[in-house]
């Protein structure tokens, strides 16, 4: 079992690139950068094969125990079970494809080696996060992901707005991280261990269902998850994070970072199940986010921002699934989403690159002919995102969530309706994007025609996002449940409420209908009568603006937090806390002068010191006696 190699290889790659990157040729950089992740992916395949063939429930590997002192025993040890296997599979494979894509995409960039170093580190952090067997290591990965996202979003740091976006991502996610850290402290306080498996095993014995502590801890963990996964109310960083290069966006959105929150909740589901109210909140956050983000996506004109909001919305689906205890459905959607979202981002990146870094969809169009491969793969990804029935992976994964949000034991009609509304909007904005970009007249000249480095990953991802759906089929399609069976040892399956089995086909029909009608609406608005959308925009200008600005969250936060904080900092320019440190310095210097005086170099003086010490010791003895 060389489990530790999986995160170690990208780390080593990153290390090599940091140390020697400037001396290596671009070709070598590409080989080291993507090769390390590729090897990881191979080992993942091998490990996965072994895992399945031995039908083990978990592998455990302790790579390195730092020390074991007085009960403090930080160790780098990994735990592999079905859940983390799915994650590392997605991370390494999608990550690898993104790396390959980047070798072409970033070919002309000066920071080539730096880019791959960060990218490798990103993958390594995420792998550490999902493989960690204790929360301390998980937190390390968690922060590593945060750091790398900061570095990568601000990759083109010469432009001020990129730096701003990077800082925003870092600070906003920090809010969640803080909550998570407090939650972890509380966990340690309660269980005296940070081992995830032990905590999961002990939690049901220690807490009753609905226990207050469980509730508080769950909410704190949720806080962390919400921050990283860009859910309400901490979603504002993600759209700005588009400032980074497209492969970075793909990596953040598909394989790493935003899914960390989903992973965290799934991983700690034992705690969440003890706090049904917290679980309910997870569902509500998911439902609200998916609709909110969907409406915002409708109004964006920047290609990548549409995709960003769509990610927020899709993660909302996963949260909704988690909220109704449909654990494996959430993970299933995560996987499929990773495929098609990576595909969409990479394709979008190719489009943007072809159009000389033009992001505005209204300035695109007619690319269907010029970039056929991109078009077809993008179409597959878009259909999957819009969950077009039967042929797309997205349909099967999203359908499962829709179904369980209604019929699952924690499901209700409101969740279902929100999810349905979300699905409708999703297919509208998805096809709006497709139509605006690829159909109609060509508005910008096509420059760079993508080569193999870009098209091959796209084709593979397109394949995966189609085939991927067929590993888990609903009851009405033959009830093929490889995926949820696989996850079952880790994530309990959800039971369906009485009397709902019979209407499953109806729900599927509705979902399919909604998706198709969304496509139709988009078709009407953007192909048949292109003027119609403009009319709508002007007639409801305020609403459009409101949606366009992401429901005004940014300005709200600006008024609520940023402005007061700046105000306080203005008052406190000479930091009060600094006084303490200045004081320490002053005291040190003061004592230094005094005691330096005693080091006079005169022998008799030193003897005097010893005598005085002796007198003090004896006097102390006499007083205390």
């Amino acid at each position: 079992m060389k489990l530790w190699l999986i995160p170690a290889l990208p780390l080593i790659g990153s290390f090599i690139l940091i140390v020697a990157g400037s001396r290596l040729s671009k070709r070598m950089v590409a080989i080291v950068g993507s090769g390390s992740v590729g090897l990881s992916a191979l080992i993942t395949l091998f490990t996965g094969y072994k895992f399945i063939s031995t039908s083990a429930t978990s592998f455990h590997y302790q790579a390195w125990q730092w020390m074991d002192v007085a009960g403090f025993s930080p160790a780098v040890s990994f735990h592999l079970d079905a859940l983390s296997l799915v994650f590392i599979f997605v991370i390494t494979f999608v990550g690898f494809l993104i790396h390959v894509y980047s070798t072409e995409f970033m070919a002309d960039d000066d920071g080539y080696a730096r880019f791959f170093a960060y990218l490798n580190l990103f993958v390594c952090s995420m792998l550490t996060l999902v493989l960690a067997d204790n929360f301390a290591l998980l937190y390390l990965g968690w922060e590593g992901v945060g750091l790398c996202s900061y570095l990568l979003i601000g990759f083109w740091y010469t432009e001020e707005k990129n730096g701003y976006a990077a800082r925003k991502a870092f600070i906003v996610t920090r809010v969640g991280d803080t909550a998570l850290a407090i939650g972890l402290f509380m966990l340690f306080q309660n269980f005296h261990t940070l081992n995830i498996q032990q905590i999961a095993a002990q939690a049901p014995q220690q807490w009753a269902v609905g226990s207050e502590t469980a509730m508080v801890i769950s909410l704190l963990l949720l806080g962390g998850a919400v921050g990283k996964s860009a859910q309400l109310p901490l979603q504002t960083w993600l759209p700005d994070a588009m400032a980074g290069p497209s492969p970075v966006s793909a990596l953040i959105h598909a394989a790493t970072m935003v899914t960390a929150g989903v992973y965290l909740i799934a991983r700690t589901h034992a705690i969440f199940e003890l706090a049904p109210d917290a679980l309910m909140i997870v569902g509500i956050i998911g439902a609200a986010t998916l609709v909110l983000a969907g409406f915002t996506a409708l109004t964006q004109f920047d290609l990548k921002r549409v995709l960003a909001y769509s990610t927020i919305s899709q993660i909302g689906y996963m949260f909704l699934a988690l909220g109704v205890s449909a654990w494996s459905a959430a993970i299933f959607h995560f996987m499929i989403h990773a495929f098609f979202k990576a595909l969409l981002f990479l394709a979008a990146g190719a489009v943007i690159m072809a159009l000389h870094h033009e992001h505005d969809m209204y300035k695109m169009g007619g690319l269907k002919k010029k970039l056929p491969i991109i078009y077809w793969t993008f179409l597959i990804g878009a259909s999957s995102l819009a969950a077009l029935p039967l042929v797309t992976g997205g349909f099967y994964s999203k359908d499962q969530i829709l179904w369980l949000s209604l019929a699952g034991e924690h499901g209700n009609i409101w969740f279902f309706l929100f999810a349905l509304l979300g699905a409708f909007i999703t297919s509208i904005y998805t096809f709006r994007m497709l139509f605006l970009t690829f159909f109609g007249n060509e508005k910008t000249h096509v420059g760079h025609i993508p080569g193999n480095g870009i098209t091959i990953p796209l084709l593979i991802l397109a394949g995966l996002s189609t085939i991927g759906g067929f590993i888990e089929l609903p009851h009405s399609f033959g009830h093929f449940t490889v995926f949820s069976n696989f996850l079952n040892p880790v994530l309990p399956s959800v039971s369906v409420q009485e009397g709902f089995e019979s209407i499953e086909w109806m729900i599927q029909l509705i979902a399919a209908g909604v998706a198709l009608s969304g496509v139709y609406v988009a078709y009407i608005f953007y192909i048949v009568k292109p003027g119609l959308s403009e009319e709508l925009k002007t007639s409801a200008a305020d609403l459009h603006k409101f949606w366009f600005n992401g429901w005004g969250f940014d300005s709200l936060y600006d008024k609520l937090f940023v402005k007061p904080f700046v105000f306080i900092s203005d008052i406190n320019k000479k930091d009060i806390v600094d006084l303490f440190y200045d004081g320490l310095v002053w005291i040190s210097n003061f004592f230094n002068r005094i005691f330096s005086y005693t080091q006079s170099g005169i022998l008799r003086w030193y003897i005097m010191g010893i005598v005085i010490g002796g007198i003090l010791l004896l006097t102390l003895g006499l007083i205390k006696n």
Partner: protein
Amino acid sequence: MEVSKINIIDVLPGIFLVTASLIAMLSIAIKRNHKLIFGLTTISLLGVFVYLLVYASNHRFTVEPLFIIDGFGTFITGLIVMSTLAISLLSYAYFEQREERKEEYYILLLLATLGSAILVISKHFISLFLGLEILSISLYSMVAYLRKRPRSDEAGIKYLILAAFSSAFLLFGMALVYSVSGSMNFSGIADYLSSANSLPLTMQAGFGLMIIGIGFKLGVVPFHMWTPDVYEGAPAPVTAFIATVSKGGMVVLLVRFFTQIDGFRFPVIVLSFTIIAIASMLIGNFLAIRQNNVKRILAYSSIAHMGYVLVAFLAGGRLGVEAVSFYLVAYFLTNIGAFGVVSILSDHDRDAEKIEDYQGLFWRHPKIATVFTAMLLSLAGIPLTAGFVGKFYLVASGVNTQLWLLVFVLAIGSVIGLFYYIKIIATMFDKSVGTETLALRPRLYLINLITLFVLSILMMFYGIYPQGLIERIQDFLK
């Protein structure tokens, strides 16, 4: 005569060292040859170490009435022997280039090591005293070894008068203890104390006077004033020896003595050591911050470090002893490394002790500067160095026994300490190139360089993977 009772095997390390020093002396009588005597010294030290590795593991027996040979003692003896080996490797080039008669140095080095090794295994006032004095008397001459340097003589005489002076206190204290308890054996004193309900005043005074003698050797406040002057005046390898082997032996003795007599029962003793520890941690660091002489900075920092060690000593128990052992390993490694850097950079007339000598060192001698940086970071206790793990161990033992005040002062002291360690590092990275006054000797210093590399690799290794060493220590202390 009942001489034959002593099992030769038990005291073999000591016999080995004695024989080595005798052979060294005889070889001088026949022909002076630096290389030969250096080789002899290193080989015999290696031999002792290998013997300790192979034969002496964690068994425990006593050689009545003077010695106790147990895991703790064996472990630290091994550490001492290895440290002396490293120091003698560093000494070769250092003394080779100086036109002194350098051969006697090795005899003294071996004898001093013997003294320290005896301190480590002694369980009786007589062996304590003899070990201490063998160590001290060898050190007097080692400190003043370079006779061309007035500073060396000055340091020598200061050390001699003060050490003899504090030995007198130690002896008087021991006499008082003996007069009350009727035994000079640690276990005899422990028996007396366990039968007595309270600590008799005379005995208490005896302990107090003994603390003066012990405190002097450790260089803790207020018996610390000799440290900077002696460190500065002594040749760099000798300074390394004083900082590590000489202090380490005393630490072990202190731990053994007070653990055996269970001195922690008596609040006045604990209070005395607490005050000494706090004063050492603070004053040692305070003294260093505006110092511009690297050797003196290291001297002041060693005062503080001994204060840190006292925290674990006061915590006592298994964890405390483990912490002391680990800390000593880390402390030995880093100090020998640091003084090794000083000695490698020293030229014919003076040691590289001014901070200006280090200006821009990184751009002139990147390897040496890197080693020195690593050593300083370890002294400062930056994570992933042995120093950090050692310090963490100390804190853990302190926290475990709720010595909050001590732990707090330890933290404050470390923060202050960071300042002057970083100051040296910053100086080394200063791009404005310093004066190239100190020339490295080619060829000769290769052996030093290799030693330094080994030391720094070990230091990093124990920082990244301390668990092996921890288990080793636990195994020895079983």
